């Protein structure tokens, strides 16, 4: 219909430039149009007024006449559309066929690859060949040129559309490529079309026309969207796996999520499914177990008549570190909190608590020390001593107890070393301990005031804040609602301190309410490479004494809080990879953050990555300094075989080893193709729109070959398409004149 009225394809109007072929100046046209409108006004309005018609009738006739005269004048100037058109037979069209296994799905009754063959053979290829030279490529995990479209098997376990397009753009630089025709379901397994690919196509002015296959939406499907777990953990820690899922057709029904470590089920949860299409996030808590690499499998039990069960499982790796962080806890006076914190951590096998308490004015009592020398001289006074710990707890110790050097070291401990410091409430803490005027206040998550009456030995009830409810370190119960209730039922604290204003960026996790009012109790923040927290009480010990013997709230709270305190404390070398699981992807980016023995940035070190993988795969890579970030070293590895890999990175300087760390990753094949198997129309449409092409449905391909010709990519010539003789113009003129005639007849004629 469009072409019947407008004579040219829509692409001509989209891409063409308006030109005037008469050669007469446009200003004359403008003046004539204005004059015609004015003349029509004088002529028509005068007659209608004389006839005694209402003004509206006169204005209507005037508008119709003005439009008619203006349109005729415009046509006299011979408007046209200038458009680049590929020269027949001189250009190449690259036809890119998706050869990944998702193309073998028969979600519409016929396999997608068969639909693709049918579309090509029902005239499309012939029509293309009439206008262009046609080159066929098939794309899966790589791009390959093929003779024709018949070699498509749709068995490959990946489709890297973006890589394929980039490769075509690069390899055909010397060819007159007029455009790319991509036939695919859009299920790209490399994460979508990146900006680099679009830019590469744009720089060649290569339009990508896309033809989509497959259903855009399933009727019944339960799918894992993502699973997020911490990449690293301390041993025997409570971790949370955030499972994001979507479903269609099962809203309100029950489903089961299972988390397995190898063959052993370590967590399971029954859930009620949310509305169709809505992302739903569920958290499964589990124990990280002993040191080593945990290979976790998250799966959703298949629902009845599910269209695709291949997207119900995902694998993740968690590296459980063997390190046993040491925490130094200093108390300025004997306090019950000290005793009960020690007890709470007594069974904690993966943490080591070293305590020192000032029992008298001149005596320190040390517990948990490695040998008689440790802390013999009191609180550490050198970087080497203090950096040996990964966390510090400061109890009832006034700020002036620390020398200026020690205060600076505490700051560096968090900022540079990346350790965690927890400040407890007491009569010698925060404002009451003179911290407001000390250098240490810089790293605290609260603005400590000057008023020294902030500590009260009044009982206080505790309650989780909104942020606290989401914090896994504060989970005493797996279920969030039950956890919240359990916190409310905890016995009152023995005392509470008003910590001061919470600093921007800090998070309040727990509030306390006493006869003195409500106040933030547990506040945390990240500072530099580390983290600090204030727990504004010394009275959690009542949770132990005032609850039944078998209740473990107090122990769990302290174990989880101290794990948070040191869980992220880095060593002199932190090894990481860009992902922990690579699905149908072999390129692994290696990263090492390297520090010296005193945790100073090490820009001039040497970093080596030793990789061992499946089937005896082994490699040693010399990593290179990142030009942007000092102390960061980068490397790249190609993991060709599916399976588990272990990377050991070692940093050294002048031949002396500085740090060592390990990281594991896993490569899996054939998984990504099972996810997002619906047609990704959005991706195909966006790709076409950004490159100047068009997304096509199977039933509208007859105009495709001609549309491709409107391209500047290959050998093209400019041509001008006239607009003055369009049927739509004639209809418009007739309609204007006809409308005037009809109105005059109806109103009695003038």
């Amino acid at each position, binding site marked *: 219909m469009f072409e019947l009225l407008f004579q040219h394809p829509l692409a001509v109007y989209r891409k063409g430039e308006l030109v005037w072929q008469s050669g007469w100046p446009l200003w004359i046209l403008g003046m004539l149009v204005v004059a015609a409108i004015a003349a029509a006004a004088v002529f028509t309005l005068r007659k209608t007024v004389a006839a005694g018609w209402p003004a509206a009738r006169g204005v209507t006739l005037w508008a119709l006449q003005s439009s008619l005269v203006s349109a005729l004048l415009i046509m006299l100037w011979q408007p046209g559309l200038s458009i680049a058109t590929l020269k027949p037979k001189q250009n190449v069209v690259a036809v890119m066929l998706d050869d990944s296994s998702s193309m073998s799905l028969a979600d519409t009754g016929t396999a997608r690859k068969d639909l693709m063959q049918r579309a090509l053979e029902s005239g499309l290829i012939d029509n293309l060949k009439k206008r262009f030279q046609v080159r066929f490529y098939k794309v899966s995990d790589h791009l390959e040129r093929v003779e024709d479209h018949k070699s498509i098997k749709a068995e490959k376990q990946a489709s890297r559309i973006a890589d394929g397009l980039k490769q075509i753009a690069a390899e055909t630089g010397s060819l007159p490529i007029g455009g790319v025709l991509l036939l695919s379901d859009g299920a790209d397994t490399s994460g979508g079309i990146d900006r680099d690919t679009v830019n590469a196509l744009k720089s060649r002015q290569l339009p990508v026309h896309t033809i989509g296959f497959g259903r855009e939406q399933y009727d019944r499907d339960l799918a894992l969207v993502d699973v997020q777990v911490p990449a690293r953990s301390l041993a025997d820690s409570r971790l949370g796996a955030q499972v994001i899922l979507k479903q269609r057709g099962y809203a309100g029904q029950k489903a089961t999520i299972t988390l397995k470590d190898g063959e052993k089920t370590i967590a399971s949860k029954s859930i009620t499914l949310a509305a169709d299409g809505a992302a739903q996030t569920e958290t499964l808590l589990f124990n990280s177990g002993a040191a080593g690499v945990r290979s976790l499998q998250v799966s959703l039990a298949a629902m009845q008549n599910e269209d695709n069960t291949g997207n119900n499982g995902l694998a993740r790796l968690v590296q459980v570190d063997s390190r046993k962080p040491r925490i130094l806890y200093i108390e300025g006076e*004997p306090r019950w909190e000290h005793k009960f914190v020690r007890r709470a951590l007594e069974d904690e096998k993966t943490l080591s608590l070293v305590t020192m308490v000032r029992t008298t004015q001149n005596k320190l009592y040390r517990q948990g020390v490695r040998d008689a020398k440790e802390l013999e001289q009191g609180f550490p006074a050198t970087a080497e001593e203090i950096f040996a710990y990964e966390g510090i707890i400061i109890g009832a110790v006034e700020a002036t107890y620390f020398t200026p050097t020690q205060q600076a070291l505490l700051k560096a401990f968090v900022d540079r070393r990346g350790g965690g410091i927890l400040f407890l409430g007491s009569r010698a803490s925060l404002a009451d301990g003179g911290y407001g005027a000390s250098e240490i206040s810089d790293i605290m998550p609260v603005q400590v005031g000057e008023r020294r009456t902030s500590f009260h030995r009044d009982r206080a009830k505790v309650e989780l804040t909104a942020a606290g409810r989401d914090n896994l370190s504060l989970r005493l119960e797996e279920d969030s609602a039950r956890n919240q209730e359990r916190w409310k039922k905890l016995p009152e604290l023995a005392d509470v301190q008003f910590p001061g204003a919470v600093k921007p960026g800090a998070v309040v996790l727990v509030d306390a309410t006493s006869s003195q009012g409500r106040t933030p109790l547990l506040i945390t923040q990240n500072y530099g490479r580390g983290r600090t927290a204030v727990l504004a009480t010394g009275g959690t010990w009542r949770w*132990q004494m005032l609850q039944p013997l078998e209740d473990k709230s107090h122990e769990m709270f302290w174990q989880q809080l101290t794990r948070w305190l040191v869980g992220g404390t880095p060593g002199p070398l932190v090894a990481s990879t860009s992902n922990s699981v690579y699905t149908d992807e072999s390129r692994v980016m290696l990263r090492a953050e390297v520090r010296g023995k005193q945790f100073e940035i090490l820009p001039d070190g040497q970093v080596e990555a030793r990789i061992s993988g499946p089937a005896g795969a082994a490699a040693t890579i010399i990593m290179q300094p990142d030009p942007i970030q000092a102390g960061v070293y980068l490397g790249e590895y190609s993991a060709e075989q599916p399976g588990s890999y272990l990377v050991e990175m070692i940093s050294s300087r002048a031949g002396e080893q500085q740090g060592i760390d390990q990281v594991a990753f896993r490569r899996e094949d054939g998984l990504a193709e099972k996810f997002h198997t619906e047609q990704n129309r959005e991706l195909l449409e966006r790709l076409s729109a950004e490159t100047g092409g068009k997304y096509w449905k199977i039933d509208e391909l007859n105009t495709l070959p001609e549309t491709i010709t409107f391209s500047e990519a290959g050998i093209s010539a400019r041509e001008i398409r006239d607009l003055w003789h369009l049927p739509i113009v004639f209809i418009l003129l007739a309609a204007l004149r006809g409308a005037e005639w009809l109105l005059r007849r109806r109103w009695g004629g003038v």
Partner: protein
Amino acid sequence: MRKRGIWMAVLLVVTVLGVAYGQRRGFMSREFPFREGEDQPTPNDADEKTEFVFARLMYPNWRSNDRVWSMRGAWSIDYPKADRQFVQGLRRLSRVHVRSVEQAVSLDNDDIMNYPWVYVVEPGHWDLTETQVKKLREYLLKGGFLMTDDFHGSMEWDIFMLSMQRVFPDRPVVDLPNSDPIFNVVYNLEGKFQIPGIVNWPFDQTHEYDGIDAKWRGIYDEHGRLMVGICHNMDIADAWEWADSPHYPERYASLAYRIGINYIVYAMTH
């Protein structure tokens, strides 16, 4: 007539023995210098809220057919002067933030859970009910600490154990080695010795009944931490109570303070 003669003979023997004993201990020659039961003024800071409070355990007394025995011993012996005088020393000699007055607690409710260190005097005369036994076990396993004092000899030991064995039928009472941290946590107490009560005045003898030697015993939990510190055959509370008296030897008072401080600081650190 014959019965009366027997009574007279008994009276004569008792009188003679009593005079002899009194002369030996000096009761007859000097005035007994320790006046129990004097009113203790309440300190001005008695209401201060502190980290530590000296908690004294109240308990029901052992009842036997022997009325005299049954009347002896009570939770309130030396109360409150010993407690208050000791905490003055605790304040001065340590960094423990302590209240100037004691707190009497019982095992009949959960209030004792607010005081994780509790002192019991004369447990050789206690007789805990089943409810109290359970409460004490729970208290100790949660992290509470019990210090016993001022009971002597085998008979009082047996009565003490009648209740204590019901608290911990599964845990033995053991002699504490000198190397135990409780003897080193603040003061080194390896050279400790028997501390006599004022009944031993003028202290040429330091034991009572057949409790010849001071016994430092205890009950450990599964982690090797002391839950019960049993000071048997000694009277530490008398030493606290009469530390201000020139008639009570300083060496005993000093040791008693050091023991008390060690037991409290141990309880606050283990």
